[in-house]
């Protein structure tokens, strides 16, 4: 015996499929607007950038296998947050990357301060797989997303008096504990390049890695990547680029001039005063695998050796 416990839903109460679908679209649109309102740029909360149409690059080492992303995300030298390599993953999450503006000034025709979004609109983002060699004798292979620094500098029209480029990291002591407490180095972090190094196509400004926005601990929203130099040259979270007549005093060079030079080119023949640079541990390689023989200019010699033709690399380390 069938007992009817409730009435069928009258057809008048069933939502028409078309109306239903329209409502869904509306709700979706509202959600997108709401999300858009709180995260106007691609970098907020490490959201995946909506429309990254990445161009291929001839400068990419496509033969190299990228290091697993988790290793790259959890092994960073970001002294503004911590002196170890693991805790910045968590500590950097409060770091504010949005809004972000970049000042370009000094020996240029067109100095100015620009919103990062506006800068990016003028650039074609490329994916470039580079080997990254730390001065601490370890290395990794990272697919960066970004563009040649030269493409940005050209827009600012450097004057003939611009011989050097100085980069400055943001001063954000409210989120960076070691800036707040003046730990170890003079903040903000400063790096520099000679103008020809800065204009070299390999030198890039990165906004992402592994097809996604840069994680905060890896230098979001904008960092430098100079693949033939030790990693400390590749300054993170850049807010200022100045073109100068004279070389800037860079952070590590100032802190320990005998150990960290201005050039910091990867060179297995020039040891750090306390350790050899002859070989490197590749992140992601297993136990009982030998260290990798470090290459001059980190393997980019063909492209960059001419920049240093008549220089004594032992003296200009």
């Amino acid at each position, binding site marked *: 015996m069938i007992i009817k416990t409730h009435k069928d839903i009258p057809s008048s109460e069933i939502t028409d499929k078309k109306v239903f679908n329209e409502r869904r679209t509306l709700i979706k649109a509202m959600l997108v607007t709401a999300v858009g309102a709180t995260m106007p740029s691609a970098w907020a909360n490490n959201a995946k950038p909506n429309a990254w149409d990445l161009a291929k690059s001839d400068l990419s080492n496509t033969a190299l296998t990228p290091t697993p992303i988790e290793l790259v995300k*959890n092994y960073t030298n970001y002294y503004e947050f911590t*002196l170890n390599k*693991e805790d910045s993953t968590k500590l950097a999450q409060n770091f504010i990357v949005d809004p972000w503006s970049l000042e370009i000034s000094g020996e240029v025709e067109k100095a100015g301060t620009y919103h990062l979004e506006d800068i990016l609109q003028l650039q074609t983002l490329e994916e470039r797989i580079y080997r990254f060699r730390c001065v601490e004798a370890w290395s990794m292979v990272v697919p960066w997303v970004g563009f040649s620094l030269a493409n940005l500098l050209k827009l600012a029209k450097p004057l003939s008096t611009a011989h050097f480029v100085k980069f400055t990291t943001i001063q954000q002591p409210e989120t960076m504990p070691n800036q707040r407490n003046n730990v170890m180095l003079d903040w903000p972090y400063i790096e520099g390049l000679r103008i020809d190094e800065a204009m070299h196509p390999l030198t890039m400004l990165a906004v992402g890695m592994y097809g996604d926005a840069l994680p905060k601990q890896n230098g979001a929203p904008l960092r430098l990547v100079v693949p033939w130099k030790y990693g400390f040259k590749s300054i993170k979270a850049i807010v200022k680029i100045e073109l100068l007549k004279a070389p800037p005093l860079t952070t590590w060079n100032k802190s320990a001039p005998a150990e960290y030079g201005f050039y910091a080119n990867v060179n297995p023949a020039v040891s750090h005063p*306390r350790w*050899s640079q002859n070989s490197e*541990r590749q*992140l992601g390689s297993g*136990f*009982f695998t030998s260290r990798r023989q470090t290459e001059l200019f980190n393997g980019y010699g063909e492209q960059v050796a001419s920049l240093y033709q008549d220089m004594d690399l032992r003296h200009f380390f």
Partner: protein
Amino acid sequence: MNFQIKNPKLVTIAVCLIPMLWLFVDIAFDNLGSNPIQALHIRLGDWSLRFLCMTLAITPLQTMTKWRGMADYRQMFGLYAFFYATLHLLTYLAIDNNFEWSLIGTDIIESPYIWFGVVAYWVVFALAITSPKWVMKRMGKSWKKLHRLVYIGTMAAIIHYFWQLKGNLAEPLLYLIIIFFLLGFRVLAGLTSRQLNKMMIPKGHE
């Protein structure tokens, strides 16, 4: 509890192996982070240094508490320092460098921080092979002289530690402070009491 009273030395021997087992667990569960080989190095080196500090703490502890018969523990901790230092060295040769002698040779020649590690290892090695009671008896007074090198070895190990770092010096500094206090204690106690020298010699050798 009964077991502890009956066999405190056996228990200590077992407990001192825990860091190694812990390391095996971390290796098995891939818990050593992005650079596991370096993490392994540091862990083993750390434990060697910790055992050296414990070895050095025995005599001051004995002086303060008037306990006797702790020399066996001092020997045991010293041997464990040697044990972990040996694993540390083997990790470097086998796990990090896969016995590629040309890489190893260049690395040692070009890395002053490793020189201090080599000094520390030779000291610990020399102390370990002269640690049996019969060797001690045969060596007589020179045994004590030799074993005072433990301070040199420990200092070398600490320099070996912080000489390879770019940033975080907190941990090696902590060891430096510990050694400073332990050495300071020995010097002060030596000045105030000649008795201390007698206590340094284990039971049965007085």
